[in-house]
């Protein structure tokens, strides 16, 4: 056993670090610092640079455009991206539907969809959850009825992230209402410009427009846009969900989050003592760092078994649970560190006003971020569901 990275891995780290340092757009940094909502082109700016370099899809097989990195190299890459505070690449195409298409799709579907997914020309959204199908996703009701060479799709999806920018969506739909619920589901790719598709914003707790309702009214979808067999879509869904959960530990990003708390704690003082030297506050930082270290080494062990050929298993639920709890804890401490200046909310008010932040830069988004991050223990399979998964699949209870 040893904890060292090889000389090759260290050289790789130096290479990617240098690339990020020299290629990450300064203009994007400015947008991030401002903390306002990003436009579509902001999201895509980094994607396109990486796509050009061939590094946008680290986990894809080389035959589909992946760089051929080992799992350790992919880990190093995500660490370096987090360390440099790069914006995350949207997961819907690269991490979710892309792998489904190259695993279950026909050669025609791969040719039609993979290049655009890789380049960023196709922005994907995920049409899964419905008002009546959250944790119980298989209970979905959006139906797709066969009409010659088309499906006619009717229903409503909710919680659809960034659908307002999407070109295409991958939807779970019910093609056989008489079958047992998981057995009547199909995986359909739908052009978001199709007649009958309406996207409506859902505003969330921090005032953001990140998620949407997607209404589907008699939407005609060519049968050739179905991935895999009719009524076998749940197989694709399960495959995708397993992939959604790895990488969700977010260790490197959480390390940066703790760095930012420490930075705030150096400037926030009470009675002449900076918070970083306050016995109560620094203890909480220490405990959080230790929690994160536990998560980090657990993730490294998972990485090691992946390198040995084991796929992502139900243990990844642990990474999701602990990873999100730590992310949330970071936002709690940041809000606490902000003190009074955690209260102002200047977004969009006055509507014609200067919208300049009130108080220190580090403080002004701490409350909206804290509120927004309550979603992490709910999405991607709630932490309660994740515990059920471990209970059943790991402990056999």
């Amino acid at each position: 056993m040893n904890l060292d990275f090889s000389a090759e891995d260290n050289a790789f780290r130096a290479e990617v670090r240098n690339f990020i340092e020299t290629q990450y757009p300064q203009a994007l940094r400015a947008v991030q610092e401002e903390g306002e909502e990003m436009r579509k082109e902001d999201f895509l700016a980094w994607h396109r640079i990486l796509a050009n370099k061939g590094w946008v899809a680290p986990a894809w097989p080389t035959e589909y455009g992946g760089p051929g990195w080992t799992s350790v190299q992919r880990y190093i890459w995500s660490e370096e991206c987090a360390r440099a505070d790069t914006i995350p690449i949207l997961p819907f195409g690269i991490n979710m539907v892309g792998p489904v298409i190259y695993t279950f799709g026909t050669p025609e579907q791969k040719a039609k969809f993979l290049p655009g997914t890789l380049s960023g020309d196709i922005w994907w959204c995920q049409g899964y959850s419905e008002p009546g199908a959250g944790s119980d996703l298989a209970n979905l009701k959006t139906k797709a009825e066969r009409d010659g060479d088309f499906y006619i799709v009717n229903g409503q999806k909710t919680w659809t992230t960034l659908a307002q920018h999407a070109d295409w969506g991958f939807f779970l739909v019910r093609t056989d209402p008489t079958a047992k619920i998981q057995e009547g589901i199909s995986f359909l790719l739908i052009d978001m410009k199709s007649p009958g598709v309406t996207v409506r914003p859902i505003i969330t707790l921090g005032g953001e427009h990140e998620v949407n309702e997607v209404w589907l009214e008699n939407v005609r979808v060519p049968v050739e846009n179905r991935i895999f067999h009719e009524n076998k879509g749940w197989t694709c869904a399960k495959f995708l969900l397993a992939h959604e959960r790895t990488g969700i530990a977010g260790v490197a990003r959480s390390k940066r989050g703790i760095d930012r708390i420490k930075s705030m704690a150096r400037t926030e003082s009470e009675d002449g003592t900076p918070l970083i030297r306050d016995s109560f506050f620094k203890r909480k930082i220490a405990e959080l760092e230790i929690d994160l270290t536990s998560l980090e080494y657990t993730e490294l062990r998972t990485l090691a078994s992946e390198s040995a050929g084991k796929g992502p298993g139900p243990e990844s639920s642990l990474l999701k649970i602990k990873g999100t709890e730590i992310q949330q804890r970071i936002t709690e401490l940041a809000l606490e560190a902000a003190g009074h200046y955690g209260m102002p909310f200047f977004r969009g008010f006055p509507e014609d006003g200067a919208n300049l932040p009130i108080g220190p830069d580090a403080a002004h988004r701490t409350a909206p971020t804290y509120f927004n991050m309550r979603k992490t223990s709910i999405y991607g399979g709630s932490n309660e569901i994740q515990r059920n998964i471990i209970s059943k699949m790991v402990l056999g209870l």
Partner: protein
Amino acid sequence: MDFNFTDEQNMLRDTVAKFVQNQYDWDSRRAIVKSAAGWRPDLWKVMAEELGILGAPFSEDLGGLGGGPVDNMIVMEEFGKGLVVEPYLGTVVLAGGFLKHGGGAQSAELIGSIIGGEATFAFAYAEPQGRYNLADLTTTAKADGAGFVLNGRKAVVVGAPWASHLIVTARTSGGQRDAKGVTVFVVPADAAGITRRDYPTVDGLRASEIQFDNVKLGAESVIGTVDNGLPLVERVTDEAIAALGAEAVGAMRTAHAMTIDYARQRKQFGVPISSFQVLQHRMVDMFMHVEQSVSMTYMATLKLDESDEERKKAVSAAKVQIGKACKFVGQSAIQIHGGMGMTDELAVGHYFKRCTMIEGLFGSVDHHLRRYETLSLGEAA
């Protein structure tokens, strides 16, 4: 030992509860927060004239109802259930407390204006550098003949955009953090030399950054005694903390009830999610936090007139409990509501946001743990 309310107190609660039910339903509150002004001065007048509740803690010979902190507690809890934004805390509890305990040339007249609904107040005490230390002041009031000249900067003054008057803490002598040398002033909000930058807060209120440039104050502006204001400030903010505890109880009770309702209706896997033991236990834990918050609010409210040390210990203990409860109940409410809890559309998220802000107002859990520890265990290391 008696935890019962009097008939008058029960009537007061009924009056406020009915007002919130009939005139401050959720859609009304949402519209108020979105409006340009951010509050309803006409409803404030209703509170003054029709309901007569703005006089709750003031003596009858000043025109009040003859009550005290318990009456404030009752009003604040009922307001908490409706997330009422109008400035009862700033006006009746804080300003009222300063005027009652500190006296001063204008106090009878100003109390009369409070009861009549003509005057509203905001408490300008926090500064960018001071965090929760009430004595950390760079705002100064230099003697100028019989009066003073006020210079400085106050941070996140809640309710200032609506206020006709400000209660301002300033240093009349001593070093930046000295206990001695703090004086409390009442200042008309439209006095020359005051500049405000107004903004909304994350929990639906309005606040301001306030700049004072050579604001001239007469001797009659002083509340309490010059240089000796800190004990008064500590006493009145402790009263405010107890009142906030009550508001938090009202908000938490409502968030808890909403959560139970939602869990009963929401079906997944063919059953209501309220049938899952994990969630039941979570809702039970919420219940325990709420009940203990009620207990601590009662305890702190009933100890407000004890010695300084007893009062501070009681209030800090209560704020620690309330702070923890606000976090647990708020977070749990959102979690059990699932995706719906994350929406701006549902009311529960707004209760969570207000509870979150109450956690930090007048001192975080850590701040109060430290104050309690110092009083209970001796000097902090």
